[in-house]
């Protein structure tokens, strides 16, 4: 399985984004299931919608959000995962947000090392494989 981070969705949606072409190629590869099934989390979904809502507008945020809901499996970060993510967030010396830490525990739960992201901070995390 492969986890898709917020920056991948945003770069895909915006033709002017510096990583737009990378995001298109990346998603086409992901859809071949070379890395297995793909998924995201409700925390990431929230970030994507928050950014589009703030930077482009609610109408587009709703359209894009609906498309994600129709096409991508969204894993819900429950109480247990949040507790695990909080432990990582509380102790890490890396510049990871709480959402980034939920990504790490979601990877562990899905028993996969693959994360699709353009966030270079993840390169410092041991035991995961960045696909970008």
């Amino acid at each position: 399985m492969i986890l898709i981070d917020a920056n991948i969705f945003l770069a895909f949606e915006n033709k002017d984004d510096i990583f737009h072409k990378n995001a298109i190629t990346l998603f086409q590869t992901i859809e071949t299931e070379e890395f297995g099934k793909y998924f995201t989390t409700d925390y990431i979904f929230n970030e994507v919608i928050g950014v589009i809502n703030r930077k482009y507008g609610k109408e587009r945020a709703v359209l894009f959000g609906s498309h994600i809901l129709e096409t991508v499996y969204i894993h819900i970060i429950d109480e247990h995962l949040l507790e695990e993510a909080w432990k990582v967030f509380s102790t890490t010396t890396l510049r990871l947000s709480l959402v980034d830490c939920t990504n790490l525990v979601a990877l562990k739960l899905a028993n996969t090392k693959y994360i699709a992201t353009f966030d270079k901070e993840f390169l410092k995390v041991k035991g995961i494989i960045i696909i970008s």
Partner: protein
Amino acid sequence: MFNMGIQITVRDVDPEVFRNFKADVVKSGLTLGAALNLAMGKFKAELQIKNKKFTEWESISWGKGTENISQDVDKILYGE
């Protein structure tokens, strides 16, 4: 109708995940079997195959000054 259920043995279960699961089950008042039935149902529902492809989405131009938005998620949302 009464359903007897079956007994199973499961290998490769993470002991910590199982301990937490069992503690949650006890708190909820369910039996382990009933909770496992619920979990399996949820797992199946979550893995339902989506009929549409994500890449069918028609991207648009957001305009000048939006080139780095995918890199600025934390800054936009959390002011970092």
